[in-house]
């Protein structure tokens, strides 16, 4: 404390002000760099989870704001799992609201809540499809997305974060808010389920 006071007293106010500004500028640059590096993948992950482009854009923006507001002061190496934790919470919130909305709509005369959402497993391409089937690029990803939509929420999260975003098990556990053991279980089951639906990927 005395040392701190000595330093504080020794530094002229102008110097302290300059240091504060430099710190803020450095932090803003670091956050900008981090968000720029993560935003496209985050958007695609949110799109796959939500199946809604506009909602995914909003979710990513909300996650960016929350990260800067609440965790901008945290060490830089914590930002990635924290960002995805926020994004996953946002996605889960939206999915819960959707479920409630669908449940309410199911009671609405003349409407079937499920009619807008085709069964993703049924609509996935036949894994035994012929060799003519083009399975590359966007078409392949579309099949994978449909298959992912048929997984449980936790399995899908584990797959998106581990395989698509490339988080390690520990980071995924932070992002999912569960133990590393649970991450491994969810991820393995996701792979098994995807393999079952997709069959051999050519």
């Amino acid at each position, binding site marked *: *404390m*005395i040392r*701190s*006071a000595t330093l*504080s*007293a020794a530094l002229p*106010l102008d110097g*302290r*002000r300059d*240091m*504060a*500004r430099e710190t*803020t500028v450095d*932090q*803003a640059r670091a*956050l*900008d760099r981090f*968000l*720029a590096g993560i*935003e*496209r*993948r985050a*958007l*695609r992950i949110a799109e796959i989870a939500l199946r809604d*482009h506009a909602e995914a*854009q909003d979710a*990513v*923006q909300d996650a*960016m*704001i929350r*990260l*800067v*507001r609440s965790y*901008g*002061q945290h060490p830089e190496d914590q930002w990635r799992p924290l960002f995805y934790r926020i994004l996953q919470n946002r996605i889960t919130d939206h999915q819960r609201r959707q479920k409630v909305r669908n449940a309410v709509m199911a009671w609405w005369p003349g409407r079937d809540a499920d009619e807008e959402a085709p069964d993703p497993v049924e609509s996935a391409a036949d894994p035994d499809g012929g060799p003519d089937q083009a399975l*590359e*690029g*966007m078409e*392949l*990803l579309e099949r*994978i997305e449909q298959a992912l939509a048929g997984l449980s929420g936790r399995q899908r999260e584990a797959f998106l974060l581990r*395989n*698509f975003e490339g988080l390690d098990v520990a980071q995924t556990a932070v992002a999912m808010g569960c133990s590393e053991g649970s991450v491994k279980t969810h991820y393995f089951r996701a*792979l*098994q389920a*995807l*393999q079952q639906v*997709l069959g*051999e*990927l050519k």
Partner: protein
Amino acid sequence: MTDERMRELERKSRAAFDESVESLDAASRSRLTRARARALEELQHRRAAWSSTWLPAGAAAAAALAAVMLWQGEEGTAPATTPAFAALEDLDIVAGSEDLAMFDEDEEFYAWAVGEMSDGVG
């Protein structure tokens, strides 16, 4: 499911995902850039909010400290450390090191408060 097939599924699905990220359309990229700029504005808002919340409290606390130090000087009870030094140390705690921008507006007040404390107990 063999490890080989598992790895193949991981590899091919990741490659397809990476490709989709690379080919993200211009409108989406533009909106992401705006979203990032909006998020970074939070840094400014947070600093402003911090100052407006804690500056009055910090000023009041500094004034209270000054009053206490003056009172201690009158009573003749010597603090354990050099009085001005201790006061400065407490002032440092009150001001905090998280955001020094507050000095922009009230540095004269703080300089005055420190001077008062030094004079009062010296």
